[in-house]
């Protein structure tokens, strides 16, 4: 037997490992900041009331950082390590590996440099602007190309199950990212989603849900199938189960997106499909979890001593909990309580902190001593990290479960006379304060643990020397790809990566096609409402400010057809109301009340004062003050381009309207400014005469956002004269 010598690239694994830790700590820190903003809003308001630190802008930074920077780098770290060894082949292109590494870090830096400054496309978990989206697609393809090229020149015959998960991750995330990111650029820093309203919502949650499935789950399952057997030093419990797990999971997951839109204006059939497939998901998810846990059968004694196994057991347990809870939350009767509350936040953090976080920590503790050829600097400290992190998860999740359940029920309470028990939304928020304190403490503990790990890993690295190129050898094999007559079909497929990728793509595309195409093409799915008209130029600019400030992070724009919702907020939302909303802004969490019928509810002067000092106008409010909107002039320099972009997307502005839009904008702004000044007490004018005050405020951003707020949900109230 001829033996070939080669080496594995450990340096790229080391790079991604450091990036995982550094961005992980950063993302968690931003998470802690926004958690404390809800717990101590007064402090932030008084001392840190900067626009770039406001909750609506930082929350997308937190989600993007932990998903794409922490978990993203974690995926690459694990894949670059395991892929080389499973294929007995060095990565195909060293330069390509490092191009991928630096390209991905550059994308993260772009996110940090744009999101806090309000440069966002306003779609949850896909906030990055169009040119960053292109960079993401490019870097994703670079990674995929490198992976496939390596698979094609491999020295083993079969592709282990972990690699299937990597392949499915690659094709599905590419598909999701591209379809969800169809945007029409207006300028370098501004774009509009090509989809509108209910269609945008469906595509967005098809993406959003499957970002969880194919970015946070399938690649990590791949890592689990490699690293758990490796750490336990025994093969996976059932390889047969892993095949069923894989195909069932990728087939079913893609359908579940609409469970994020229950009771919304999405067609009923699509909602029901989402629920059915979400419930079915329990089976493959638990199959995978049990397969992981049972791999440790007969090795449970080692779990007591091996810190990596401890992290893995908690990770798998959290995976089991969140994949049991997910289907539960997709049932309409549970969703009616949980949706828009902190329950969802608890759910995602059991998955994020528990499954992704703990698995990543386990991997890091295992990898560092391996690639640095040394022992872990302090096993004791790693054990302390384990307990601190576990306690952190508990202190995070339990208060949020209670908060969510409590608030969800409070919104539903009725008095015997048919009025709401808690008509004041703010009261239900203030009840949650103690839980927000506890959640911040949980987050703090988790962050402290991660910092301890960082220290421990750096010390470990310093005590050893990086084995940048690890020598390996494998048998030279010929004719790897020849099939035998009568061979088992899966054996053939798993040997042919390209066919395997195509089959995976077909499997995941079926769900997307069946759900999305009918929604896009069937006119009856979005009944038009004749009184719904395009936004005026000022409202459009105001809406862009709403997107810039990330208002959707705390306010929904979707009233569900439920009695307790319509009594509180008014007529339930209709899909025809959102046909000009590029992108949709339904939101997924109500830290503040729903705004779908805000238009005309309050006076202009109320909004003007409320945005300046929310806590004065609404005592006890936890909303940040948006003082900069009162100081900064509205930027109308690209208004004409925005109008033309909207026309391209099918919004029926009259031909040539881009040229006269600014005139209309000024006129409407003037009217609002006059109304505000007329209703301002003389003492508050600070010696200015009314005309001067009107002139001062009519060009400010605040006027535009008020125009938008006053328009929201008003179209269907318009009375049409009878013929």
């Amino acid at each position, binding site marked *: 037997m001829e033996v070939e010598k080669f080496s594995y690239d450990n340096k790229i694994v080391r790079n991604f490992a450091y990036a995982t830790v550094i961005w992980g700590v950063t993302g968690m820190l931003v998470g802690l900041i926004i958690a404390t903003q809800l717990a101590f809003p007064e402090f932030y308001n008084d001392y840190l009331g900067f626009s770039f630190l406001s909750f609506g802008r930082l929350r997308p930074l937190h989600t993007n950082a932990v998903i794409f920077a922490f978990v993203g780098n974690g995926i690459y770290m694990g894949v670059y390590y395991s892929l080389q060894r499973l294929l007995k082949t060095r990565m195909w292109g060293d330069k390509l590996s490092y191009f991928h590494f630096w390209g991905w870090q550059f994308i993260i830096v772009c996110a940090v440099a744009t999101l806090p400054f309000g440069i966002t496309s306003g779609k949850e978990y896909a906030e990055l602007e169009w040119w960053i989206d292109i960079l993401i697609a490019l870097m994703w393809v670079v990674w995929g190309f490198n992976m496939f090229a390596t698979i094609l020149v491999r020295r083993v015959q079969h592709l282990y199950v972990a690699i299937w998960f990597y392949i499915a991750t690659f094709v599905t995330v590419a598909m999701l990212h591209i379809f969800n990111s169809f945007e029409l650029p207006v300028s370098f820093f501004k774009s509009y989603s090509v989809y509108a309203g209910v269609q945008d919502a469906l595509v967005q949650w098809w993406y959003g849900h499957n970002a969880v499935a194919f970015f946070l789950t399938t690649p990590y399952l791949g890592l689990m199938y490699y690293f758990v057997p490796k750490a336990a030093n025994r093969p996976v419990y059932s390889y047969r189960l892993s095949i069923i797990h894989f195909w069932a999971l990728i087939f079913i997951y893609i359908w579940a997106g609409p469970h994020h839109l229950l009771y919304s204006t999405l067609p009923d059939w699509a909602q029901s499909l989402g629920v059915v497939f979400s419930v079915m998901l329990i089976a493959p998810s638990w199959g995978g979890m049990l397969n992981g846990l049972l791999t440790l059968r007969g090795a449970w004694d080692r779990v007591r001593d091996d810190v990596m196994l401890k992290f893995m057991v908690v990770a798998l347990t959290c995976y089991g909990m969140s994949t049991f809870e997910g289907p539960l939350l997709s049932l309409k009767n549970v969703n009616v309580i949980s949706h828009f509350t902190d329950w969802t936040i608890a759910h995602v953090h059991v998955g994020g902190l528990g499954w992704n976080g703990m698995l990543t920590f386990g991997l890091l503790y295992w990898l560092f001593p391996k690639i640095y050829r040394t022992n872990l600097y302090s096993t004791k400290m790693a054990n302390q990290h384990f307990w601190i992190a576990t306690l952190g998860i508990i202190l995070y999740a339990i208060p949020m479960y209670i908060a969510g359940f409590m608030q969800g029920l409070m919104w539903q309470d009725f008095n015997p006379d048919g009025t709401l028990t808690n008509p004041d939304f703010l009261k239900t928020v203030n009840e949650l304060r103690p839980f927000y304190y506890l959640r911040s403490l949980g987050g703090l503990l988790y962050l402290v643990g991660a910092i301890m790990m960082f220290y421990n890993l750096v010390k470990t690295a310093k005590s050893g020397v990086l084995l940048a190129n690890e020598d390996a050898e494998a048998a030279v094999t010929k004719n790897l790809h020849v099939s035998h007559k009568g061979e*088992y079909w899966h054996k053939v497929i798993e040997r042919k990566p390209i066919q395997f990728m195509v089959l995976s793509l077909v499997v995941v595309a079926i769900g997307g096609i069946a759900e999305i195409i009918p929604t896009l*093409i069937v006119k009856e799915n979005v009944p038009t409402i004749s009184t719904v008209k395009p936004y005026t130029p000022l409202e459009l600019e105001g809406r862009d400010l709403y997107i810039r400030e990330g208002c959707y992070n705390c306010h929904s724009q979707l009233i569900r057809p439920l009695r307790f919702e319509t009594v509180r907020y008014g007529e339930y939302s209709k899909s025809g109301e959102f046909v000009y909303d590029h992108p949709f802004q339904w939101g997924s969490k109500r830290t503040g009340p729903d705004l779908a019928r805000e238009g005309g509810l309050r006076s202009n002067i109320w909004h003007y004062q409320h945005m300046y000092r929310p806590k004065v106008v609404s005592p006890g409010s936890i909303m940040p003050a948006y003082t900069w909107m009162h100081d900064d002039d509205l930027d109308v320099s690209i208004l004409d381009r925005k109008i033309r972009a909207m026309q391209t997307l099918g919004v029926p502005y009259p031909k040539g309207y881009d040229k006269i839009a600014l005139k209309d904008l000024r006129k409407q702004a003037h009217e609002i400014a006059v109304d505000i000044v007329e209703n301002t007490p003389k003492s508050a004018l600070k010696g200015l005469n009314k005309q001067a005050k009107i002139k001062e405020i009519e060009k400010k951003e605040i006027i535009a956002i008020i125009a938008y707020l006053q328009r929201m949900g008003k179209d269907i109230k318009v009375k049409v004269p009878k013929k």
Partner: protein
Amino acid sequence: MLRFIKYNLESIGSVEWYPLFSLLIFVVFFIIVVLRVTKMSKAHVIELSDLPLNDKIDTNIKDL
């Protein structure tokens, strides 16, 4: 961009059958996978599940 797809698909009747067909495809596909998996040879299963642990020279592969 979507207009092109829309135009071609609007003529398709009974679009409501899409989800049912897809569900059917899944059930059939799932049953096939389960049936075939149960018929896998034990030796092959062991060979595959040992892949991550097999860091030494791979002697399992013979020149075919």
